[in-house]
């Protein structure tokens, strides 16, 4: 790999031992990829803090220091190095529990204390404690063409596709190295040619609601896997999809498949026209999405749903926007969550504080639901005791929860989910 003079200096230790270890990891990683060089980045999204007993024991064995945890888990360095302040703007992603709800999340006080220590350490180094899978909602909105180093598949696909910024799906160690060096391998979606569409998805029906966009995303991801689809409608996309729709769409496509980049003609920034999205190439395949495909996708997402009795309704995957919390509050105001059911809604901390001020948190709590932060049921593996069947308005969560926890899942609209929470029954008709 070709290194600039500044990168060579970091490799030679001029930035200190932690920066040297970070460069060493980036060299090993870049060469593994077959990258020719690194690219500058000033925007990292990552998991940095520690939430597991294994990491706590690991830290204890090495004197309890958080530098030992960062050295191993974020830099792949077996030598413990002192971690300097981060060079890049760094946003913390979601974690394995909501530290404000240890009982509901089934974690011990000791682990919450260890987490709090690691959060203080990360914040002290410069991490923004956003604690969300949707950093683009709370202050990290990269601009078109900005080179980023992000983890979290639903955030990666939003970053590339909706914002037109450039990132691969990074991991804990590569983002750790990027924080200290401001570098990441120049490979994959950092390069123009890899961002062009390979597959066309032709819409034969209108795609309108948040549920509609989730269904289309799940269908598309399943068929294109890791390749780059472009969605278009001969009649033009009807209503312009907003943040909740595109957030759900990308999350679904990166769950049923590994989509990290898509285009929507006339909507996303690198697809003003179909020709622009495709470059000069013919598509590998043209897929048609009509009523039959929509129905088959609905059946597939609902494949585990059998029992009508619902014990748990989870909303907020990816983390809810303030608009979605407003909608949920309107739907549930004056109603009560059924005694056999619980309603958990997940959102970033910053948006929860807005919901607190707006009075939405109180409306949801008065109805018997709860607004939580930092995590979700798939990340935490936490659901209310006795949960057999869940209702969800997220195709991504419906994809993961049955696999992770062995529960049945129903997928439908937000209104159907709020109804399920208040009646304890799933009455969602077929989409």
């Amino acid at each position, binding site marked *: 790999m070709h290194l600039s003079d500044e990168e060579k200096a970091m490799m030679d230790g001029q930035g200190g031992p932690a920066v040297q270890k970070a460069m060493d990891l980036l060299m090993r990683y870049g060469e593994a990829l077959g990258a020719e060089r690194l690219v500058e980045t000033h925007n990292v999204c990552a998991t940095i803090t520690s939430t597991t007993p294994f990491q706590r024991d690991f830290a204890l064995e090495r004197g309890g220091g958080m530098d030992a945890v960062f050295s191993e888990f974020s830099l*792949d360095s077996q030598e413990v190095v002192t971690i300097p302040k981060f060079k890049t703007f760094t946003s913390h992603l979601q974690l394995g529990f909501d530290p404000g709800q240890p009982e509901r999340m089934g974690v011990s006080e000791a682990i919450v204390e260890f987490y709090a220590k690691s959060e203080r350490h990360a914040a002290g180094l410069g991490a923004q404690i956003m604690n969300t899978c949707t950093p683009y909602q709370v202050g990290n909105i990269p601009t078109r063409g900005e080179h980023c180093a992000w983890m979290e598949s639903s955030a990666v696909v939003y970053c590339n596709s909706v914002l037109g910024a450039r990132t691969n799906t990074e991991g804990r160690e590569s983002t750790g190295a990027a924080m200290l060096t401001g570098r990441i391998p120049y*490979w994959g979606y950092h390069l123009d040619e890899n961002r062009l569409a390979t597959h066309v998805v032709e819409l034969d029906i209108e795609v309108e609601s948040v549920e509609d966009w989730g269904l289309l995303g799940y269908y598309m991801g399943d068929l294109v896997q890791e390749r780059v689809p472009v969605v278009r409608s001969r009649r033009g996309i009807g209503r312009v999809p907003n943040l909740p729709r595109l957030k759900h769409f990308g999350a679904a496509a990166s769950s049923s498949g590994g989509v990290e980049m898509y285009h929507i003609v006339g909507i996303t920034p690198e697809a003003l026209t179909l020709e622009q999205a495709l470059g000069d190439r013919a598509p590998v395949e043209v897929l048609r999405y009509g009523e039959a495909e929509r129905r088959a996708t609905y059946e597939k997402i609902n494949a585990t749903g059998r029992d009508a009795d619902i014990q748990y309704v989870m909303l907020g995957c990816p983390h809810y926007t303030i608009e979605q919390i407003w909608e949920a509050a309107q739907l549930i105001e004056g109603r009560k969550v059924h005694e056999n059911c619980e309603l958990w809604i997940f959102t970033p901390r910053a948006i929860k504080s807005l919901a607190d001020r707006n009075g939405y948190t109180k409306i949801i709590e008065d109805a018997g639901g709860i607004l939580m932060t930092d995590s979700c049921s798939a990340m935490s593996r936490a659901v209310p005791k006795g949960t057999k069947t869940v209702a969800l308005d997220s195709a991504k969560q419906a994809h993961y929860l049955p696999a992770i926890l062995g529960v049945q899942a129903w997928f439908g609209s937000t209104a159907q989910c709020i109804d399920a929470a208040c009646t304890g029954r799933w009455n969602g008709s077929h989409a």
Partner: protein
Amino acid sequence: MNAVVSEENLVLTLRGRKVVGGIAEGEALVTRERISGWGGIDPRTGTVIETRHELRGQSFAGKVLVFPGAKGSSGWSAMFHVARLMGTAPAAMLFNEMTTKIALGAVVTHAPSLTDFDRDPLDCIETGDSVRVDAERGIVEITKKNKKSGDHA
């Protein structure tokens, strides 16, 4: 690929590109299905746990893992990283599809790894074969478990 008929066993040789250096030997564990890290493996035992995966319940600890590539969450590298710390990592990894997930995962697993082969390892290697991976030289030597030289007479 060269096939050399030794006295006892058929030995095949593959050539590939180094992803992570080093030399390792072990029994092959082969799957045609991509592997998920987060939500796909249990690093305490090195076992594949994904529902409906053909390797579900099988451990790759100390084996030469032969597979198409990685899929799923960005937690792929972190899970294989923990598997190394817990002593359950594969001895070596041979795969076809290069992604950031598997490149970083292979690097932090410290397991000798190769890709870009002259022949598809999924066609040449079966579970139970003895495999020697020399990632420095980009060479994989496969001793077939079932095919004694006489079988090919």
